[in-house]
Structure formats: structure tokens, C-alpha cells
């Protein structure tokens, strides 16, 4: 088989073997519905409570504040729609940023059509939310601030603590999309004064189709999915036992040696970034040089279009992405890259490599060898590059 190097861990991760092993019995042996009172059910009730406790502990929450959902997008939708529905008597203003994930952005845009007002705060050239602007945009009728912990495209980590304090001071509910941050930074919902936090298991070597919403006790929020009495009557649907068990195991593994994980990823990331910037003229790093996810390397390569790069990399077995996976159906340049001030052309020629626990130094070396060749080939074809060379 031809060489395959996966560098798209922010899109999704392979499940760890321990996670799969933990899940397996629950598919066809210990498969009962945890809401059933017979022993097939009871034995699984205990099992999901255990997973709940493990995950709650990793964010310093209590087990009765975390609710399983069908994924990160559902968690974001629930948090935002749930809070503004609960508080619509109190106000109609929401604050978010220009670089949120689409699960937040499109939800906010939908709410605008429903009569809510949304401020999309700017970010600086590194992708850090403008705190002054955020503060100034707070109004008496602001009911929700929703800011992501770390960006999925450029990896920038936000000053969540400062925003949490601001929100607290003004008594505004604070939601944080931590789908990308989880497993890569230590998150303490109490210290950070977070009211709601979204997670998704498949970004941390857990299963797809399972997420979580932390809801701080006392937070006003209505349900997104009505029905049965599961999740303390707040999220209906037969509990996804294998996925919950897998999420619990993935959470345990992620936080049992966070430092080791971060060190491994940061080393490889920096090697990749420095190597690429050195070998490829007219390239630049997107996002913050240090306040960034340990595995994220987002690079703009001028005078080439991103898809041509992606396809060429794919031909030599290297998998990465331009922008986020969920927007790759679209032809518009990334809203995140536009928000940090890139021109259309440069935004179009951007690549996101995301490194994970299974990435080796050879993988990075392979990219450092192949990508410059590809860039050179594509630039030879580019009418834009011609001029640059001519001019120099």
C-alpha cells in the first residue's frame, strides 16, 4: 500500500484501541437500555454514570452538570438556542466572534432571522478576540456571550478567563465551544467562570456521534430535544451506551498525561512550521505563534490555490485540509482567514496540518520533503507567480 500520512486530526481522529475495547461489549452483550429497570438496563446505568463522572472531573464540573448529546454541533445549538429561548423575556442581544465554528455562527445567523440581535466581535491578526470591542458591545439586554476556546482552523486560544470574568460581572450567560481545546489544554469551568461548555468525543480519539454539554447548576436553558426522561429529563433519546463509554475512556486517556501529549505535539508542530516557512518562499504562519493548539500548523502559501495543494498532497498520501472539513463543500475562502485580515488570494492558498498522538517525526519529515516540490510545480503554472519572479 502507498504511504499514507494523516495530518487532519482536527477534522477527526482515529479511535484509540483502549476506547474501542471499552465499547465493544456494549454493542451486543451488555447492550441494555439504561432506562430499563431490569438487570440489562441497570448494569448500563452504572456504566454511563461512571463515564459521566470521569468526564466531569476533567473539566472540574460535577457529574450532574454534564449532559450527553449527539455531538459538538448539537451541544452548540442546544447551548445557544436553549439559553436565548429561556431568556428571551430578558433581552435579545447575543455576543460572539467572527471566527466561531459554523455550528455557532450559523446558529447565531439563524437567530438573527428570528429577531435576535448578534454582535460578531472582530479578532486581531493572530485571531485573538478583541476584548475591548467585546466589552463595549455589552448592552443591558445582552443575554449570551458565546466564544470558542480554541479555533479549529488556525488554532488560536482565546483569553477565556478574561471573557468569563466580564460575563460574570455583567451577569451574562457564558458559553464556550471547547470542541478543539478539549484534550489539548486544561479546562476548569469554575475557575474560568463558564456556564456552558460544548465537547465532542471524536476530536479526542473517542467515537463520532457523541458530544456533551456542561450546564452549570442554575443556568436557565430550555431543551433542544424533547421526549423521554433521559439525561435528567433535559435531553431525550435512548442513551448511546457504547459511545458514552468510549467518550469516558477517551477523556480519561486524554487527561492522564496531558503534558506528555502537548509536548509531543508541540515539538512536531514547531518542526513542521519552521521547516515549511524556511523551505517555501512566500509562505506565512496563520494564527498566534504561541497561543495556539499544540497540534495546529496553518500556513498560507502565496500564488497557489489551496485545493490544488490538497489534491497534490493527497496524491503522495498526505492528508490535510484547507479551512475546516465541514466547509470544504463550499468555494468561499475561510471566514476565519478573512477575519484575521488575509486577502482573498492568500486565504485561498492556505493549508491546515493538524498533528495528533499517532503522528511521528518521519511523517513531518515526509511533508517537509514533498510539499516544497509540489509548491514549486504549482507555482510554475501560476500566472500570479510569474509576475513576482519577474519583478524580483
Amino acid at each position, binding site marked *: 500500500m502507498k504511504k499514507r500520512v494523516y495530518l487532519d486530526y482536527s477534522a477527526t481522529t482515529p479511535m484509540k484501541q483502549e476506547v474501542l475495547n471499552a465499547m465493544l461489549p456494549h454493542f451486543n452483550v451488555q447492550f441494555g437500555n439504561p432506562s430499563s429497570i431490569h438487570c440489562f438496563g441497570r448494569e448500563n446505568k452504572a456504566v454511563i454514570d461512571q463515564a459521566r463522572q470521569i468526564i466531569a472531573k476533567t473539566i472540574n464540573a460535577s457529574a450532574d452538570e454534564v449532559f450527553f448529546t449527539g455531538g459538538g454541533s448539537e451541544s452548540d445549538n442546544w447551548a445557544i438556542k436553549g439559553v436565548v429561548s429561556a431568556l428571551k423575556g430578558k433581552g435579545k442581544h447575543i455576543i460572539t466572534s467572527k471566527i466561531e465554528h459554523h455550528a455557532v455562527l450559523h446558529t447565531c445567523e439563524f437567530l438573527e432571522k428570528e429577531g435576535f440581535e448578534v454582535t460578531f466581535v472582530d479578532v486581531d491578526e493572530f485571531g485573538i478576540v478583541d476584548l475591548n470591542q467585546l466589552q463595549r458591545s455589552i448592552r443591558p439586554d445582552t443575554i449570551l456571550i458565546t466564544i470558542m476556546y480554541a479555533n479549529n482552523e488556525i488554532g488560536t486560544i482565546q483569553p477565556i478567563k478574561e471573557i468569563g470574568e466580564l460575563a460574570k460581572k455583567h451577569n451574562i450567560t457564558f458559553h464556550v465551544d471547547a470542541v478543539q481545546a478539549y484534550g489539548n489544554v486544561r479546562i476548569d469551568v469554575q475557575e474560568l467562570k463558564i456556564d456552558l461548555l460544548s465537547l465532542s468525543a471524536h476530536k479526542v480519539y473517542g467515537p463520532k456521534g457523541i458530544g456533551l454539554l456542561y450546564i452549570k447548576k442554575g443556568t436557565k436553558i430550555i431543551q433542544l430535544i424533547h421526549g423521554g426522561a433521559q439525561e435528567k429529563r433535559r435531553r431525550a433519546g435512548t442513551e448511546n451506551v457504547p459511545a458514552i463509554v468510549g467518550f469516558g475512556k477517551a477523556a480519561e486517556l486524554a487527561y492522564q498525561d496531558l503534558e506528555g501529549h502537548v509536548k509531543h505535539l508541540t515539538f512536531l508542530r514547531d518542526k513542521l512550521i519552521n521547516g515549511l516557512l524556511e523551505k517555501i518562499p512566500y509562505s506565512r504562519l496563520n494564527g498566534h505563534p504561541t497561543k495556539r493548539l499544540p497540534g495546529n500548523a496553518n500556513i498560507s502559501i502565496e500564488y497557489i*490555490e489551496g485545493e*490544488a495543494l490538497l489534491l497534490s498532497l493527497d*496524491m503522495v498520501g498526505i492528508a490535510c485540509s484547507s479551512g475546516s472539513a465541514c466547509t470544504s*463543500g463550499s468555494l468561499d475562502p475561510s471566514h476565519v482567514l478573512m477575519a484575521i485580515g488575509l486577502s482573498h*488570494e492568500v486565504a485561498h492558498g492556505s493549508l491546515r496540518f493538524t498533528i495528533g498522538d499517532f503522528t511521528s517525526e518521519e511523517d513531518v519529515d515526509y511533508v517537509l520533503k514533498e510539499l516544497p516540490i509540489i509548491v514549486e510545480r504549482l507555482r510554475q503554472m501560476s500566472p500570479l507567480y510569474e509576475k513576482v519572479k519577474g519583478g524580483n
Partner: protein
Amino acid sequence: MYSEKVMEHFMNPRNVGEIENADGVGQVGNPKCGDIMKMYLKIEDGIIVDVKFKTFGCGSAIATSSMATEMIMGKTIDEALSLTNRAVADALDGLPPVKMHCSVLAEQAVKSAIYDYAQKNNLQFDGLEGFDPNEDHDHHHEEHED
């Protein structure tokens, strides 16, 4: 996503480059949309004897440029003007719906280069009727299926 033919032309594009003292040069597209196509023609006795291109764009843009140059090489100007984007796409065993506009770009690039040749030589071609090389081909949303 792409046919084997598209990938083959993308990886081994034909006729990449420039022609010095070309008889006709055309450029279409807009870097803002992530694509520019530039086409160079050498024309002798009404026949396209050489053609080269440069493209900044996606895989499909590169492949359609390459295919278009192959399809007009050695053809008369009238034949080249009758090249449609559909024909280019078909020759590549089809394109995904969202990528059809890249083939439009290829058709426009050919027309634009011939237009330049016609301007320089004071010629008229039926196939150029209604063609405006400066028209802003803001094509990015037209083929969106929803």
C-alpha cells in the same frame, strides 16, 4: 470527487507555460475567487499552431485548462471558438456540479485570447459575437445545488 481523467490532467497538465510574442493572450477570472486562467496562442493562417496556459486555481481549473489547450491545438479559429465548457467537461469524463464553472473559465480563456488576436489584427469572428473579455465572471455561486 474527480474523475481519473481530471486527476491525470491535473497531475500532468499539457501545454503549461508561456509563448513569447504570442499572437493572442487572454486572461480571465479573478484572484479573489481563487482562480485566474491565462492563455497564449500562436496562430498561423487561421490555424492555432501552438497554445500554452498558466492557471492559478483548483484542481478542476488546472485540468480544464490543460484539456482545453489540447482540444484547440491545430484547430482553426472558428473551431476553437465553438469549443464549449460542456465539451471540455465531457472530455474529462465530467466534473462535479460545483466545479462546472471552472470549465466555463476555460472556454472564456480561449475566447479571450482569440479576442486579443482579433483586436490586434482588426479581424471579426462570428464566434466572438457578444463576447466581452472584461465581463466580471462572478461565477462562484451559479451552479450551487441546494
